[in-house]
């Protein structure tokens, strides 16, 4: 009994750590992007100020679905983050860091947000939700194929064991071992994080920040926390799957920072696709590349 309590506490600690880490790194990244844009940029802890400011505001409600959806989104995402291994040996629930757990649990949070946004009754929000789901359909397929290839090669779907597999001498990181798949994964990760050019479902100039259009105050603050933890989960997945996991926590933070910053810099010089272009894009090159990679890796056995 006490074991389970301890595990849950550790899990919440992991989620909290993820939130703090991602929020700080996002703040630093705002400075980095500001430099690309010839500016100084905000303080590094600006994201914390934003989130706590939002939580300190009063807010209106648009019915109980609207409120409940936000709580469901945040709870679902915290629940997902609890399973995330930080290093290849440290995790809250030992043995439950299966890749498919994340795929299923992250959907709870997303669905909560979609439900809540549709509950607001704003047409822009429903367009945004529709676009978000379409984008999800687009990037999931190539990403899944690449990840299934990895699972086939390693013979396990546990994140920490995939990480450990890459750390064994003789095996290189999957980002290098499966170079085509690695590129596909980067593109899919940009789609997951909603970075440009796949930012279609936020699109302030078209649908006024899409799903978030009706949120303000506390609900928006909770959504921001949810967003930060989602980013933490997705980037961590990439680190564990493709960048050889992490032997210790410092290495994890370094890899995490490099991945997130690189994506942000790439994103800052791109425009935004239309939604049909997003779908076409993902179903064209990344899908072909992912299938090619799977074929090469599994049937021909060419793994660097």
């Amino acid at each position: 009994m006490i074991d389970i309590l301890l595990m849950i506490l550790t899990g919440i600690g992991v989620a909290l750590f993820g939130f703090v880490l991602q929020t700080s790194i996002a703040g630093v990244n705002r400075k980095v992007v500001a430099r690309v844009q010839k500016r100084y940029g905000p303080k590094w802890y600006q994201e914390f100020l934003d989130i706590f400011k939002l939580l300190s505001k009063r807010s209106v409600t648009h019915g109980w679905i609207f409120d409940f959806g936000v709580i469901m989104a945040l709870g679902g995402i915290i629940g997902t983050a609890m399973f995330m291994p930080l290093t290849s040996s440290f995790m809250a629930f030992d043995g439950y860091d299966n890749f498919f757990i994340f795929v299923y649990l992250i959907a709870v949070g997303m669905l909560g947000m979609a439900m809540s946004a549709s509950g607001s009754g704003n047409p822009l929000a429903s367009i945004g939700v529709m676009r978000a789901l379409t984008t999800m359909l687009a990037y999931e397929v190539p990403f899944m194929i690449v990840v299934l290839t990895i699972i086939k090669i390693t013979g396990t779907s546990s994140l920490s064991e995939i990480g450990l597999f890459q750390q064994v001498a003789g095996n290189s990181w999957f980002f290098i071992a499966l170079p085509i798949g690695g590129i596909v994964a980067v593109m899919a990760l940009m789609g997951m994080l909603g970075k440009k050019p796949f930012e279609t479902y936020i699109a302030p100039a078209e649908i006024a920040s899409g799903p978030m259009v009706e949120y303000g105050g506390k609900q928006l603050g909770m959504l921001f926390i949810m967003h930060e933890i989602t980013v933490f989960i997705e980037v961590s997945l990439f680190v564990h799957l493709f960048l050889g996991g992490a032997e210790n926590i410092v290495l994890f933070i370094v890899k995490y920072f490099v991945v997130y910053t690189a994506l942000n810099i790439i994103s800052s010089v791109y425009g935004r696709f239309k939604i049909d272009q997003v779908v076409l894009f993902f179903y064209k090159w990344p899908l072909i590349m992912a299938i090619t990679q799977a074929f090469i890796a599994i049937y021909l056995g060419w793994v660097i």
Partner: protein
Amino acid sequence: MKEMKLFLGPQHPGMHGNASVHIYVDGDIIKKSFLLPGMLHRGFEKGMERHSWVNNISLIPRVCVVEPDTNEMAFAMAVEMLAKLEVPERAHWIRMIILELARLSIHLMAYGGLGSPTGLYTMMYHAHTDRNTILNIFEKITGHRVYHQYIVPGGVRKDLPVGIEKDIHSFLDDLESRYEEYRDLGINNPTIQARINDTIPLPAEVVWELGVTGIGMRSAVNKPYDLRKVKPYARYDQVEFDVPVAPYSDAYARVDCKLQEVVQSIGIIRQCLAKMPEGDVRVPISRGQAMRWTVPKGHVYACVESSRGEFGYFMVSDGGTNPYRVGVRGASYPQGLLGIEKYLPGTRLDDAALWVDTMGVCSPEIDR
């Protein structure tokens, strides 16, 4: 799926200025669209009737916020036509420098504004930074950043300050050196090209139906229909420049023409600085009695080429101290009102903001 009504504006990050586009969408496709103007209506035409000719100088730049200098130029030209004023030679060249700097600034702003609907905010920041440099040059010349009140009937208010040529030259060199970078960041960027290639085309045959002028027309009809060439004012007949044209007017062609005009404007400013003679810059009008200055009777229409097309002032004088009637032909009137009503349906929701940006819909001059 049923039709939904969306409001692009008045408070919307994709709209430039305070206007509202009402859109009925089916999925992402626009079925019907209207512009709702009038949110910037200030009663200018009435206000000008209530002020004297000289007082109006401070009122007119406020008609179009982003490009005040063409207003001043058109107003000054109309008054000069009515009062038969001869403008000193040097004033013509100074006016051209101011107008072309203003054209540079608004093209940079529009090019940066393209970053907003397409999501490329980096371009927006870069372009606005350069625009800010132009505003600083304006502040040195005229004392104001945005509303200069510098081109007045009978010339310009004051001569150029000493040493401003150096500032202008260094800015032009800087801009020219980074011109390719601008192109690479913006319209040569694959993601931007995916958005603007073949987006919201404007066929050549509908141009006349709408009455669109400026870049929107030139990029469709493929002829150099620019008022600076067709009926040259100031000293545009004595400088050499090309008018960029294109055979097929989509968003890409229009932005491309804008960027080419930037190069031409840089050339014009350089020629002006080289060819500018010395001399007076202003004809004194009725010294000491400016408020009681009267202008002979008549109906005139004066127009200049703004960045969005033909910008004109229709002016009636009854021989009094005030204008009897001033009518403003906003350059973006056709593409703003009729263009949005007729040529947005059938395009996608994502493209509505692109039309507003690339055709240059300036809401203050529609509403006045």
